[in-house]
């Protein structure tokens, strides 16, 4: 029965070339695995977490210090949440360079983008839940960035916070988004995403140089060839996450104090690019123009002209420059900014 379940997601036979690890780097599968893990660890944490200020912090402390394996479960949830953002970014890069977003995969690219937004939402809403100084002030800074949006900025900010300041209403809002809205929508979209890969005829396998051979002759049965590879890889990834979480605890600072901002506080790391930019260019550009153009570019990407199933040189150059630019800004923001945003060396 389990094998027939597997065959709902996977075809009976797969082309041999599709099994090559360097074709996908296992990124999509890794993301799916991590999402399932997040669901499981999140479920466990949810039994003890209380989404009200002060109690929230105390309940996280309780999980961390007095529940059996509590610190491990919390660390896994914390670190996997961050790894997941990196993994889906790499997955997006992989799809881009393989040109696997043109029709018939166009709609799946759009679904993937929506899932990416959901994963960022999950991470960001989870950021506030421990209710320590870092979560309080990081969310304050990140939601303050919204107030720079022209015209609707301050009302947007108030909607996000559920009030003028980050407080009990914000915590409740973020909690329900984090534990209901995101998981439900993510799972629906994930089912669709997988089904669509099959519907488009499996993952995109680049044509061989000498395209004489037919596909049929090089296909292998999905069980065991694909199944075993996927299982082994899942086991490996799980081991890495477990080891990492065993040795490095998820941080928990002092309890949130709205009166006192700690000396080095930053927005969540994936927003640091925007925040870094905010120091150099007018806010309208960093907060409004930049995210809108990134979103628009990625959405319109599958509608652009292709050359042999790959993006044109112009599109490629645009994409690579943009990605490098954001990467450099983000790295500067994460490691080269010390107290009071002065430039420091990370060593």
């Amino acid at each position, binding site marked *: 029965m389990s094998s027939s379940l597997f065959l709902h997601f996977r075809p009976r036979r797969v082309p041999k070339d599709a099994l090559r690890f360097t074709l996908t780097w296992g990124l999509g599968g890794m993301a799916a695995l991590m999402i399932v893990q997040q669901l499981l660890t999140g479920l466990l944490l949810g039994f003890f977490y209380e989404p009200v200020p002060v109690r929230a912090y105390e309940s996280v402390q309780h999980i961390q210090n007095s529940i059996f394996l509590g610190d491990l479960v919390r660390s896994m949830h914390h670190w996997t949440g961050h790894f997941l953002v990196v993994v889906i970014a790499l997955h997006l890069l992989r799809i881009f360079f393989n040109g696997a977003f043109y029709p018939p995969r166009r709609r799946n690219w759009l679904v993937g983008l929506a899932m990416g937004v959901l994963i960022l939402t999950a991470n960001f809403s989870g950021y506030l839940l421990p209710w320590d100084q870092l979560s309080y002030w990081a969310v304050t*800074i990140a939601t303050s960035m919204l107030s720079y949006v022209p015209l609707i900025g301050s009302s947007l900010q108030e909607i996000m916070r*559920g009030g*003028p300041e980050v407080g*009990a209403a914000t915590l409740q809002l973020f909690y329900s988004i984090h534990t209901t809205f995101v998981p439900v929508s993510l799972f629906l979209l994930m089912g669709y995403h997988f089904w669509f890969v099959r519907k488009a005829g499996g993952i995109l396998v680049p044509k061989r140089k000498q395209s004489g051979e037919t596909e049929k002759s090089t296909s292998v049965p999905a069980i065991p060839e694909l199944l075993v590879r996927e299982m082994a890889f899942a086991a490996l990834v799980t081991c890495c996450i477990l080891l990492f979480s065993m040795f490095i605890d998820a941080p928990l600072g002092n309890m949130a104090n709205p*009166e006192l901002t700690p*000396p080095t506080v930053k927005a969540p790391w994936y927003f640091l690019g925007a925040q870094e930019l905010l*120091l150099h260019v007018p806010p309208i550009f960093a907060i409004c123009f930049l995210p809108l153009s990134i979103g628009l570019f990625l959405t319109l990407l599958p509608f652009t002209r292709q050359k042999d199933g790959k993006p044109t040189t112009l599109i490629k150059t645009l994409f690579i420059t943009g990605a490098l630019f954001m990467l450099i800004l983000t790295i500067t923001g994460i490691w080269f900014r010390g107290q009071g945003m002065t430039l420091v060396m990370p060593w």
Partner: protein
Amino acid sequence: MVPGAGDDVGDAMVEPPSRRRFLTNIWAGLGVVALLQFLAGAAFFLTSGRKRTGKKSAPLLEAGLVGDFPTGSVTLIRKGNLYLTRLEDGGFLAISKKCTHLGCAVPWMAERKQFECPCHASIFDITGDVIKAPAPRALDLYPVTINRDMITIDTSNPLRRSGFTPEQVIYPEERG
């Protein structure tokens, strides 16, 4: 006569009968209406729940008597999360603690006589005016009234301002 009966007979064979198409369209239309109703209902549900929590319990804050605050001093008013500044000439300003850059709480550095934001190093002078960016404008003000030496601060809505102007300062009434 059914609407659309003038169509080519060949087409009518392939396409579903127009009555079925009509019913399907009605179903789809009803679905859209139901969705819109749900969205509108949800929006009202969410916004009306918010108003109750948005109100502050006591917007009017009695900070103290004029004599309690020496000239050239900045006092933290814990309850309102703001500062009461008394300038050298005796005038008062109630200054928000929230940095206008990205909302961090700004501490008063008594030795250097300025507000220094820990987040991105904005600096403000004693009147809340910007000395050093990235803060785009001066710290917000709260309306102050002085009645028979008692200083009252209205904490319900902070006033945005671009910079400091002398009209913002509130002076105690001269004693007869």
